[in-house]
């Protein structure tokens, strides 16, 4: 059978299970779009390439499967890079296909030519510049294998226009790329870990995105329950534990609760699973879990010893390792350690201010109003931390946020991906007035596809987390953190054809319920206090037990 490079690409993507591709056409990828029009793939026309990357991320993060996006050469590819870098830091498997100027023009500063290959090296897991149509047969399955194997991540395929147009005769097509079998832990190591756990008086599980990627949440819950081990999680690890489980201590680190960070401080054994000792989680390293021996398991061998040298470690798949470890550990309840934590809980209760307008209460109220199986995407800033603290995340892959790169503008396009991958579910966007503006053009895409997305804007008229840091650490010198012109987001939504209203909570609880009861997109612009801060907060450079609790106060 004869293919063009572009039609071969469509066929190979389809064989990888790709049913939806997000992107924007342009000069250097028009052959790809021509072939796309004749394929079964569904295309979502986003309004900015970055949003195409985040849409693919929303699909991948909510399903665990690889997703794809398209962009043209030059500005198209460069616009995509932020979303690719974001996927790299949060280990999200996406495959980005960019058009490139025709091979003879490469290196001539041709129209819309940039060195996409060179620019994407540091932000991808791997990248390819395809030099001939036959290379596609190897490159496309390899791209998916790489994206899905080991520690997952983004792969970019740059295809010159002449390669998209070149013809090739093929009798058969290669097998789709699949994840390599994950590395197994050594049995001896697991036995040593079981002994270390048995001898610990104050063990603590510290779990993150790697547990989610591995699908090991049941194994973590089982280990915690069998050995009476409390669990702290990273932002990426929310949902691994049932928020109602008494052994769940919530998110640690910069905005973690006092109890959570004190538990880490007192622990004599830290069982670190699928985590990378990120600075937002650890605070000052010297003060992080200073009394603890460390067990570290991560599928990326390079994470082991990168920040904290473990006592026992395994570069392996967490799920398989825990499945075996759970058969080796001795069951125990650890009454004393649990009583100590309960005492901490009584001493430092996690209580939001009584004020009903507090944004944490708003996040909790929205969670209450959301269907039990809703997916929420969260942008970056104060509202992100209030959501992390107050939205009870009951399942993995249901709370999607830009953890590593912290990209404002993530939530709206990521929600589109989640909604497309889960047409049966309601998707909530929690955003801020700063973050929303960074990809607000996607309201057009949402309207065009009538996606069931409830956009909730925590509107404080500020870059709130910047304002907060200027208040606390820069002598209240507020520079460029206040928006003097504040757009009418509800009117903007209506301008895009999406119902929008401006509400105040809890006064307009009825309006909220009505908005949520209608299927389809809606935007709610919700005023929150302009100068509310996220607490607790660990000042930069301090250890996690030196958190600030309130205006001017130290705990």
């Amino acid at each position: 059978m004869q293919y063009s490079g572009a039609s071969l690409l469509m066929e190979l993507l389809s064989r990888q299970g790709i049913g939806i591709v997000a992107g924007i056409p342009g000069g250097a990828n028009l052959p790809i779009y021509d072939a796309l029009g004749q394929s079964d793939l569904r295309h979502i026309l986003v309004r900015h390439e970055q949003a195409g990357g985040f849409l693919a991320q929303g699909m991948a993060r909510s399903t665990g499967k690889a997703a794809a996006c398209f962009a043209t050469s030059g500005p198209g590819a460069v616009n995509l890079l932020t979303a690719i870098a974001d996927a790299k830091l949060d280990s999200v498997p996406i495959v980005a296909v960019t058009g490139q100027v025709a091979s003879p023009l490469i290196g001539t500063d041709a129209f819309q030519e940039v060195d996409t290959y060179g620019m994407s090296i540091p932000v991808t897991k791997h990248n390819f510049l395809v030099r001939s149509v036959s290379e596609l047969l190897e490159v496309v399955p390899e791209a998916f294998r790489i994206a899905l194997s080991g520690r997952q991540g983004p792969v970019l395929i740059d295809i010159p226009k002449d390669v998209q147009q070149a013809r090739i005769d093929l009798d058969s097509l290669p097998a789709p790329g699949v994840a390599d079998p994950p590395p197994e832990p050594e049995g001896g190591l697991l036995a040593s870990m079981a002994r270390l756990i048995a001898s610990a008086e104050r063990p603590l599980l510290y779990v993150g995105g790697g547990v989610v990627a591995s699908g090991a949440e049941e194994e973590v819950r089982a280990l915690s329950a069998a050995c009476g081990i409390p669990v702290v999680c990273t932002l990426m690890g929310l949902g691994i534990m049932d928020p109602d489980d008494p052994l769940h201590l919530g998110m640690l680190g910069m905005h973690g609760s006092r109890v959570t960070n004190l538990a880490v401080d007192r622990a004599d054994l830290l069982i670190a699973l699928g985590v990378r000792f990120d600075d937002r989680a650890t605070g000052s390293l010297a003060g992080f879990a200073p009394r603890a021996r460390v067990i570290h398991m991560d599928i990326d061998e390079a994470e082991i010893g990168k920040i904290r040298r473990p006592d026992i470690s395994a570069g392996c798949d967490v799920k398989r390792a825990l499945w075996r470890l759970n058969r080796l550990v001795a069951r125990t309840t650890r009454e004393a350690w649990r009583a100590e934590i309960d005492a901490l809980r009584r001493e430092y209760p996690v209580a939001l201010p009584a004020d009903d307008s507090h944004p944490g209460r708003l996040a909790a109220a929205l969670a209450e109003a959301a269907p039990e199986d809703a997916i929420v995407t969260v942008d970056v800033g104060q509202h992100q931390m209030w959501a992390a603290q107050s939205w009870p995340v009951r399942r993995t892959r249901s709370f999607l946020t830009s953890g590593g790169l912290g990209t404002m503008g993530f939530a709206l396009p990521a929600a589109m991906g989640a909604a497309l991958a889960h047409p049966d579910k309601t998707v909530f966007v929690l955003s801020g007035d700063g973050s929303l503006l960074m990809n607000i053009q996607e309201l057009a895409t949402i309207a065009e596809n009538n996606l069931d997305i409830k956009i909730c804007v925590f509107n404080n008229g500020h870059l709130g987390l910047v304002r907060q840091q200027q208040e606390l650490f820069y002598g209240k010198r507020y520079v460029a953190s206040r928006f003097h012109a504040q757009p009418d987001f509800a009117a903007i939504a209506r301008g895009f054809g999406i119902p929008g209203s401006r509400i105040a909570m809890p006064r307009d609880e009825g309006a909220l319920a009505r908005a949520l009861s209608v299927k389809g997109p809606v935007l709610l612009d919700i005023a929150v206090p302009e100068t509310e801060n996220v607490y607790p907060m660990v000042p930069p450079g301090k250890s996690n037990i030196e958190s600030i609790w309130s205006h001017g106060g130290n705990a």
Partner: protein
Amino acid sequence: MNSLPNTIVKLMVKNHPGAMSHITGLFSRRGFNLEGILCAPVAGGAESVMYLLVRNDERLEQIVKQLRKLYDVRSVTVQDDLDHTVFDRIEQLLNDA
């Protein structure tokens, strides 16, 4: 020339136009020091052998682990026993030029 204790990391690399960028990019991206590179094609040009002169400090283990993750890198070995003078002779060559 070696005022700092250096060692040599030997890589076998898939030979294609982007491989060198991936390796040098890793060093700049992660702030690793790279004192010298020697590279030559082997196996009829399908692979290259690269010798990297790097500091033998506490970051060496992380350098090796990150190099192992690169797609084009087939093998990584730390060659403690290798004669550093090959790099010294290059410096001599450059001084003479």
